């Protein structure tokens, strides 16, 4: 997207990005929607119209409406009246976009961060290796391949005996 200078509102895209960085993921509140790489584009039009483009994590994610409304509200809180929130599927969201700082916060929260996705193996029968977020051991077992939300699965660590959630690599 080209860089457009707002004529009526003195608002830079970076200010909007900063505001969106404080919008939590509704299902994992220790990370924000920008940490997760869900916000793909922010533009400020000539008339001060702000357009935010985001991409869903999972197509059936029930939090999409909440995220959409939270984005709109965060931009309105900056004094913007004309806000458009768009969604896009391209490129499809990948856990590779979750930034390093957010991965560390996920780990401290008790969720194993996702492993690199390894593009080109879309249909694989074996799951990726996962490390216990508490003790760091790779001696873990998946106890359920689906978890409390679409983006996670359940594990137990055979070294420290802790059950934990792990992010799917998508």
């Amino acid at each position, binding site marked *: 997207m080209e860089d457009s200078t707002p004529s009526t509102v003195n608002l830079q895209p970076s200010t909007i990005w900063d505001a969106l960085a404080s919008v939590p993921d509704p299902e994992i509140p220790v990370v924000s929607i920008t940490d997760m790489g869900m916000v793909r584009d922010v533009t400020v039009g000539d008339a001060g119209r702000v357009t935010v483009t985001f991409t869903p994590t999972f197509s059936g994610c029930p939090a999409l409406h909440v995220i959409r409304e939270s984005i709109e509200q965060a931009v309105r809180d900056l004094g913007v009246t004309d806000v458009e929130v768009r969604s896009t599927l391209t490129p499809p969201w*990948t856990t590779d976009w979750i930034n390093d700082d957010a991965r560390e916060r996920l780990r401290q929260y008790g969720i194993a961060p996702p492993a690199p996705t390894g593009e080109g193996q*879309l249909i694989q029968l074996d799951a990726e290796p996962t490390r216990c977020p508490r003790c760091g051991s790779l001696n873990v077992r998946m106890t359920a391949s689906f978890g409390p939300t679409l983006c996670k699965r359940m594990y137990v660590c055979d070294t420290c005996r802790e059950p934990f959630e792990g992010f799917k690599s998508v």
Partner: protein
Amino acid sequence: MTTTPSISGTELTDPQTQALLLKLTVLADDEIILAHRDGEWTGHAPILEEDIALANIAQDELGHAGLYLSLAQTLGGSDPDRVAFWRGPDDYRNTRLVELPKGDWAFTMVRQFLYDTAEALWLEAATRSTYAPLAEVAAKAVREEKFHVQHTALWVERLALGTPESERRTQAALTELWPHAAQLFQPVEGEAELTAADILPDLNAVHARWTDLVTRHLVDKCGLTLPDAPTTQPGRDTHTEHLAPLLEEMQSVARQHPDAEVW
């Protein structure tokens, strides 16, 4: 059901648009009906983790239906909620495979395995569609479908190689479901033209890949026996007696509250 596919430069002719609308409806119908059958296990699955897993899978399939129907809407189709909740059994175009009652756990897992492998392979091929909005939808959905395949492949293996009882039930499920699974590869009217234009995947090629994949798993790995598939069978407009009561239940809330704006 809100994600809007991006606008593409690909121009479709009117017959192509009509055929694609039908194909998208057919795909969504299979997802919706199977999701409902999976949802019937909520609170009833053998263990809590599987209860949650099937609910997750159902949620993904509904998400895919939402993608297909949103794309159909941009091509001139109806509102996705109208399509899902206001068509009766005469208008649904799902396969009989997905409408059969949920049966036992082996039946549910074998059906889901046959369906998930077919869906994953079709989607993988559809990522190369020359119609960009469809390629985008497929690229999104195939990433989710791989988790279904991993899960159901493992369950079928566990059941087939488990006890004599679990093996008997798994083989019985496969014997009943196998002829119906072939219906997933029946083209819709006008599909050949879309395939020729590389808008839709070549269904015969996907069918061949699917047969190879499931044969390796079911026969070579799990020791199950594949029955013969019927050479001819009725189309997607022919349903069993099981679809009408399913729709009656699934659509009851929407039909009781036709003006509801918030669920």
